[in-house]
């Protein structure tokens, strides 16, 4: 008779599926990707010929530009500039904004919480909506529930995000006067931008979840689960649905880039003070330090989010880390 402590029994039921090799490999991949992004930004600086011109205010004279060039070390050999650039970026050292004269990274970081709030909520909301409608269209007993919600989502997918936002503004702000049109003075400002962004995420999630549920319905492990005599609902949710979340989560990870791009447009449309709006403003007004800093930080955020999503996928399907 084997004796067992409660700890031992608990330990037998808990074990992280994440293998260290995978974690290391994936993190290194993220670092490489980030390095690549920073390098591309570096190349952008030099693409136009004279980086000093790029970073100088438009009204600068030739001497001021030359002075700037000396200050930033643009007269140094290229590889040394590159290394210095890398070092500086990792420490957060970057030129100042041409307009506010504050450090560029600081300008961007101020806006990060807003965009984070917008993006995160939109992804969660959009995914939840997509999962719900996907589940309904694959497993509902009611024929209408199976067809109508997902058709609506399919239509929504063909509406460009800026137009969708515009329509929502027209309906809810101008006509019904329930919500404000722009800015960020209260929580009410969040609703329309979040909904607009969520409309980008939901349709593909719904579609993939539905097709995965349908395809895996007769998988052998589902049959085994049913053969255990557990309730139909437990089979459908614990075994069918949750396992079907794996490709959906992968999809969400792949859509993150699109979410960020969408955030840029949506923030501009709603004049929402986030990183996206800052990026557009700085690009239009040629405030390159801020624009480049925004690009770097956006890439950082994107890669981190992507890494987290990949880890989430492995938790749902441990086989994913061996591919």
């Amino acid at each position, binding site marked *: 008779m084997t004796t067992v402590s409660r700890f031992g029994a608990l330990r037998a039921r808990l074990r992280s599926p994440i293998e260290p090799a995978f974690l290391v490999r994936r993190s290194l*991949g993220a670092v*490489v*990707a*980030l390095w*690549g*992004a920073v*390098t*591309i930004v570096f190349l*952008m600086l030099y*693409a*136009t010929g004279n980086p000093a011109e*790029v970073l100088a205010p438009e009204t600068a004279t030739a001497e001021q530009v030359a002075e700037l060039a000396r200050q930033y070390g643009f007269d140094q050999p290229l590889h040394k500039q590159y290394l210095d650039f890398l070092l500086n970026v990792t420490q957060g050292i970057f030129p100042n904004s041409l307009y506010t004269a504050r450090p560029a990274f600081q300008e961007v970081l101020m806006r990060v919480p807003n965009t984070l709030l917008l993006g995160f909520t939109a992804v969660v909301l959009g995914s939840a909506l997509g999962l719900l409608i996907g589940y309904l269209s694959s497993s509902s007993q009611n024929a209408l529930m199976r067809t109508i919600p997902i058709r609506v989502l*399919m*239509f929504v*997918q*063909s*509406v*460009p*995000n*800026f*137009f969708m936002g*515009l*329509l929502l*503004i*027209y309906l809810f702000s*101008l006509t019904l006067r329930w919500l404000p049109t722009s800015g960020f003075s209260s929580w009410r400002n969040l609703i329309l931008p979040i909904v607009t962004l969520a409309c980008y995420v939901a349709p*593909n999630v719904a*579609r*993939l979840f539905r*097709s*995965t549920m349908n395809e895996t319905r007769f998988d052998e492990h589902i049959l085994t689960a049913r053969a255990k005599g557990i309730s139909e609902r437990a089979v459908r949710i614990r075994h069918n649905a949750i396992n079907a979340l794996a*490709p*959906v989560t*992968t*999809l969400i990870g*792949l*859509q*993150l*880039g*699109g979410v*960020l*791009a969408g955030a*840029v*447009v949506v923030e*501009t*449309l709603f004049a929402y003070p986030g990183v996206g709006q800052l*990026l*557009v403003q700085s*690009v*239009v007004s*040629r405030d390159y330090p801020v*624009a*480049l800093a925004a*690009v770097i930080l*956006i*890439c950082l955020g*994107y*890669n981190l989010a992507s890494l987290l999503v990949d880890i989430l996928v492995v938790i749902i399907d441990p086989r994913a880390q061996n591919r």
Partner: protein
Amino acid sequence: MSAVSTSSAAPARRRLPPLTVTVALVALAAIVVTTFSAPLLGLDPYKQDLMAMLLPPSPQHPFGTDLLGRDIAARVIWGGIPPLFVGFSAAAAAVLMGLGLGLLAGYRQGLTDSVLSRLADIQMSIPGLVLALLILVLFGASITNLIIVIALESWTMHFRVVRSQVMTVRNLAFVEAARLAGIGEESIVLRHILPSTIPILAVTGTANFSQALLMEAALSFLGIGVQPPTADWGMMVSEGQAQLANAWWVAMFPGIALVAVMWCAQVVGDWLADVYSVRGDELQ
């Protein structure tokens, strides 16, 4: 028995497309034809008439007029040229790039594959619109640059699927059998490998077209794409935003045009994906 991957190695069943798809294809063709015959239709998108600002839709101006008195119907027809042209060209360029590099990486493997795959990964680490914004503002926002930048952003989509398909097919027994029959490597690529990528490229190509169109419209909306006074749907929506309260038609009609094209492309793309059994997570 092992099953050959259904995504494209098996020939598509020759089914007639369902009604919605046919409608979508016809509608898309109609829109494209109308748009590109704009020069022939004798409509002037630039003619300003400051006496006729912001007029609602009427028989003389079916879609109304904008802030400068220009006929919106004319501008909607002309305004389709940049998005459709950019969308199609960028997608075509990206498909060719992705196909070529994907064949190379999948077939040669080894160092070539590592380098190209890393390149693709790095490329994908910057969200497309962000990179596009930067490049366009540094190099100018011409149609050519738009096409280049959008193509550069989307080639990875095709690269990944072609590479994966090539790596699968090149190990399949019938390719080995061809080698044993003495068929040269080049012939093998042309006879066996290339044809197996066509179906999946049809799917990614259509998806690319939609995405490219959307990106052109978004860039123009932000003011970084096509510049006024050229008519462009995205830009027109942006112009119309300020008038939304009192002249809804300025933004609505170009927007509806966008939705129409996107919907048609989506219906066709979905049907192709269905026919060739491609799943959503393989597309992006």
